[in-house]
């Protein structure tokens, strides 16, 4: 590039500074959003790891029958054990504004625990009897504040206690979830910390009784020693850190979040490319005459192209770098929001994923470069005369048609608009694609929620035949579970829940659910194979199947400290309540019988509330859910995303409007002479302006039509991804669910018409005489 072109482009940059700033802001916004979203999950993961480290989340949890706390001292001396605590873990209920299932954890009152350390948010450690400390997440959800009194159900009845502290615990890193619940609902369980001696006394247990041990261990190696020390204990269940319910859910959420944010960030870049490209086309198009003059003066296509590449690199490079810099606080804000929402804590330092950082830094220059080369090439390839006069820009030469249709009433403005779109196929396609992508981006979120909601409703309607689902306060044997039966109950199906290690080619641990194969209150929806009939047959969940590739026909060895069993998998179910589904007798054999944590119940017509009250009177029952509650609880969880979805939809439409505005402006700019001629022929400003609006309407209509199958395709394509963490997910879309698409299309039409306004304003202000005569006067 010679120095005159260099000087010209520098001055050009100053002249078009507002336009350049606009393009830069777009790149900057796209890059900062892209990197910001990309850093959200790794930063949250880092925060989670830090929280786990600082708060000493237990590596191992062992629940036993009641035993002496003397065992803790022996366990602490096992090689590889860094710290161990013995505690009492009981299930009960508390009353505040409403009644809640509660996990009661009895701790040594002399000092807060070394394992699963409590982080005090309000108040402090208990001073004496009658005082409790509550987990803050569940307390907030139940409306319990510091200083409030709550009632706790003990063996001797309801006892009033004062809340002296509110804490976060790594065990309940998400909202407290009852791990024994058949269908756990986050936050529906209170976690109450009490002085150990007081709890022992309140439940009539001998002094020094505990039933749960939590460990911090060095990497591997400690377990064998622990089992040796506990060989004489009745172990009820064992949880490894990765299986601790809230922690496992967050890890799963983060892993899904990683792929989801990748998709969203990618879509942001695609749409941003369309917009940046259209901005550059507009910028270059306005300088068409100048490019023609440069060509006429003898400047080569290459040198002109290079001068615009220089301009593009300045605009794209600078904005990308600023975008990456801004992405740090944006990433911090995103991860703060995410971490606050999931971990109830502040986020750690932003963790920059190198790939996001590199793509973000390169996006601006590359996009601007590609956009400017495409845009400039369209003009520099013209002969100088064509560029100066504005001819040769209507697309390829027409092939001879020679066809004259019969005379009919025609709207010549519509004809003109349609013909223009057909001749300028490339630009029409670009705009239609930009509109379609924006509509897909905007409405995808709405349809996803509708699909989730419909999946929940239809799965519950098709598969769940029970009227009530009861969660038991603690694992019991079958006879004890069935003892809650009474008047009004038609059928009762106890459900066993236990953590098992599994082996076939690989190995790991999962939750096993045991029930009668013959029962009909909970039906399985199978993705492959058939339902089991024999005792040694089993089903695996869709997620388990995807993760482990264990499917129909495979043999699976299930192992617990209490026993092992070999089962043959007959099918894969969309059920999400467990990983492996086994016959109840197998579940009992793996757990000394005390394995039932809940039950499905069918009641006589009109007896629902009576049975519910009757069940809740039993201290054995922690919580009772109606089928409708389950549905509405799950639907509520989904609807909490609505605000984010609306914002996402609006941003998509806004981006689409900017692209429409740029492309329509360029299109009008290119056809100034034609518009001038229309005015000279006697077409009014309004009529000519209307033709521009008509073009926009046609483009948006095409974009909307294209978006529908595209949207459906994207939705179908994401089924497998969503099923990995929400197995019941299916794209069940009804006509009414497309309202979100309708809203987005409506907004696109509206903003599209607004976006056409600058172009119509240009036509309105056009000097017709100057335009049609090529600017001559004299």
């Amino acid at each position, binding site marked *: 590039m010679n120095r005159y072109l260099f000087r010209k482009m520098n001055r050009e940059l100053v002249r078009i500074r507002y336009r350049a700033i606009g393009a830069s802001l777009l790149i900057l916004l796209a890059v900062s959003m892209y990197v910001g979203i990309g850093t959200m999950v790794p930063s949250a993961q880092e925060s989670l790891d830090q929280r786990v480290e600082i708060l000493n989340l237990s590596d191992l949890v062992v629940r036993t029958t009641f035993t002496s706390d003397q065992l803790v001292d022996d366990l602490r001396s096992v090689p590889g054990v860094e710290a161990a605590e013995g505690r009492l873990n009981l299930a009960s209920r508390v009353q505040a504004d409403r009644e809640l299932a509660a996990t009661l954890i009895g701790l040594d009152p002399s000092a807060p625990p070394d394992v699963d350390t409590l982080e005090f948010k309000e108040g402090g450690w208990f001073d004496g009897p009658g005082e409790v400390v509550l987990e803050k997440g569940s307390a907030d959800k139940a409306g319990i504040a510091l200083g409030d009194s709550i009632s706790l159900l003990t063996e001797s009845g309801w006892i009033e206690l004062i809340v002296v502290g509110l804490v976060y615990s790594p065990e309940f890193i998400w909202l407290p979830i009852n791990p024994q619940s058949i269908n756990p609902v986050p936050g529906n369980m209170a976690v109450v910390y009490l002085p150990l001696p007081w709890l022992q006394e309140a439940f009539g247990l001998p002094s020094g009784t505990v039933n749960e041990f939590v460990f911090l261990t060095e990497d591997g190696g400690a377990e064998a020693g622990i089992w040796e020390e506990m060989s004489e204990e009745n172990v009820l269940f064992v949880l490894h850190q990765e299986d601790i319910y809230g922690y496992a859910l967050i890890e799963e959420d983060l892993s899904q979040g990683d792929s989801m944010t990748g998709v969203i960030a990618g879509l942001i870049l695609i749409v941003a490319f369309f917009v940046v490209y259209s901005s550059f086309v507009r910028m270059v198009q306005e300088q068409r005459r100048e490019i023609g003059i440069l060509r006429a003066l003898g400047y080569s296509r290459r040198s002109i192209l290079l001068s615009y590449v220089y301009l593009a690199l300045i605009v794209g490079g600078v904005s990308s770098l600023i975008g990456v810099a801004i992405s740090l606080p944006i990433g911090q804000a995103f991860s703060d929001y995410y971490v606050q929402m999931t971990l109830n804590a502040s986020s750690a330092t932003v963790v920059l994923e190198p790939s996001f950082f590199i793509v973000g830094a390169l996006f601006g220059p590359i996009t601007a470069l590609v956009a400017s080369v495409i845009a400039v090439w369209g003009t520099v390839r013209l002969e100088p005369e064509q560029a100066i006069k504005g001819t040769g820009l209507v697309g390829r*030469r027409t092939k001879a048609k*020679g066809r004259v249709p019969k005379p009919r009433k*025609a709207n010549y403005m519509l004809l*003109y608009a349609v013909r223009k779109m057909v001749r300028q196929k490339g630009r029409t396609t670009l705009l239609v694609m930009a509109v379609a992508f924006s509509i897909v981006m905007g409405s995808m979120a709405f349809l996803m929620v509708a699909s989730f909601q419909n999946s929940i409703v239809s799965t519950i309607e098709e598969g769940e035949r029970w009227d009530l689902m009861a969660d038991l306060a603690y694992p019991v044997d079958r006879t004890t579970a069935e003892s809650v039966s009474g008047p009004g109950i038609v059928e009762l199906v106890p459900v066993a829940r236990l953590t098992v290690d599994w082996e076939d080619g690989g190995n790991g641990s999962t939750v096993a659910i045991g029930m009668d194969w013959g029962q009909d209150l909970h039906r399985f929806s199978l993705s492959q194979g058939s339902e089991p009939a024999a005792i040694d047959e089993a089903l695996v969940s869709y997620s388990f199947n995807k993760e482990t590739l264990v499917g129909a026909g495979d043999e699976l060895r299930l192992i617990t400290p209490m026993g092992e069993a070999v089962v043959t998998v007959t099918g894969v179910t969309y059920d999400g309540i467990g990983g492996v589904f086994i016959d109840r007798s197998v579940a009992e054999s793996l757990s000394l019988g005390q394995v039932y944590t809940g039950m499905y119940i069918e009641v006589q017509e009109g007896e629902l509330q009576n049975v519910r009250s009757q069940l809740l009177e039993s201290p054995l029952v922690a919580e009772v859910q109606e089928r409708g509650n389950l549905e509405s609880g799950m639907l509520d969880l989904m609807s909490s995303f609505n605000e984010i979805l609306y914002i996402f939809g609006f941003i998509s439409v806004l981006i689409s409007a900017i692209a429409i505005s740029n492309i329509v402006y360029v299109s009008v700019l290119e056809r100034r002479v*034609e518009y001038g*001629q229309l005015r000279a*022929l006697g*077409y009014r400003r309004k009529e000519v302006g209307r033709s521009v609006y008509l073009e926009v309407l046609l483009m948006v209509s095409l974009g909307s039509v294209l978006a529908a199958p595209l949207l459906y395709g994207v939705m179908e394509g994401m089924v497998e991804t969503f099923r990995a963490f929400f197995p019941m997910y299916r794209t069940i879309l009804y006509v009414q669910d497309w309202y979100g698409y309708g809203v987005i299309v409506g907004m696109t039409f509206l903003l599209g018409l607004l976006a056409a306004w600058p172009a119509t304003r240009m036509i309105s202000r056009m000097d017709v005489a100057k335009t*049609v005569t090529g600017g001559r006067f004299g």
Partner: protein
Amino acid sequence: MVLKDVVKEYRNGDRSVKAVNGISLSIDKGSFVVVLGPSGSGKTTLLNIISGLVGPTSGEVRVSGRDIAGMGDEEATKFRAQSIGFVFQFFNLFPTLTVLENVEIGLALKIKDPQELRSRSLQYLKMVGLEGMEGKFPDQLSGGEQQRVSVARALACEPELLIADEPTGNLDAETGETVWALLRDLNKQTGTTVIAVTHWAEAADFADRTLYLRSGKVERTAGPGAEA
């Protein structure tokens, strides 16, 4: 058509230029007037004023008794649609419309009946010698043929006044001459008044009257009715 003391002044910062500087003249209905003059003499500005594309700074312009100078944008637009036909140097055809549609798009403002619209368009295309080319697009035609389309488009509306601004400026000499002959023939056939601006001095041979402009003024006229 009557012009009285018409002035058009353009301002450029502190400078002002009188592109048309006090022109008065009258043109008879059905006449063929050629305006000659060097660049910057005010030829195109004069045509723009007569056609209602721009208003004069001062003076009076009357076409068929109507005052063009005082017309607002809406009225001037309507006036152009009803009374003026244009032929430009660069043809100004719509590249995305066929030859026939290029003629019809202007005429559609006047004639609503599709049959009549079609027959009138075909009639004028035949008149300019483009019979059989109706379905072609402008870029499939030669420069001379394109200008013929623009003549047919202008005349199909049967305007009172045909304004031609350098109609052959973009054509070779031979083709240019045939276009001038065509304009003259059509002027005789249809009785439409034609005012054409050109640099080509030989165009005067086709004219009833020739105006020579210099520095925004009529320097001299030739032919019947010369009075400026």
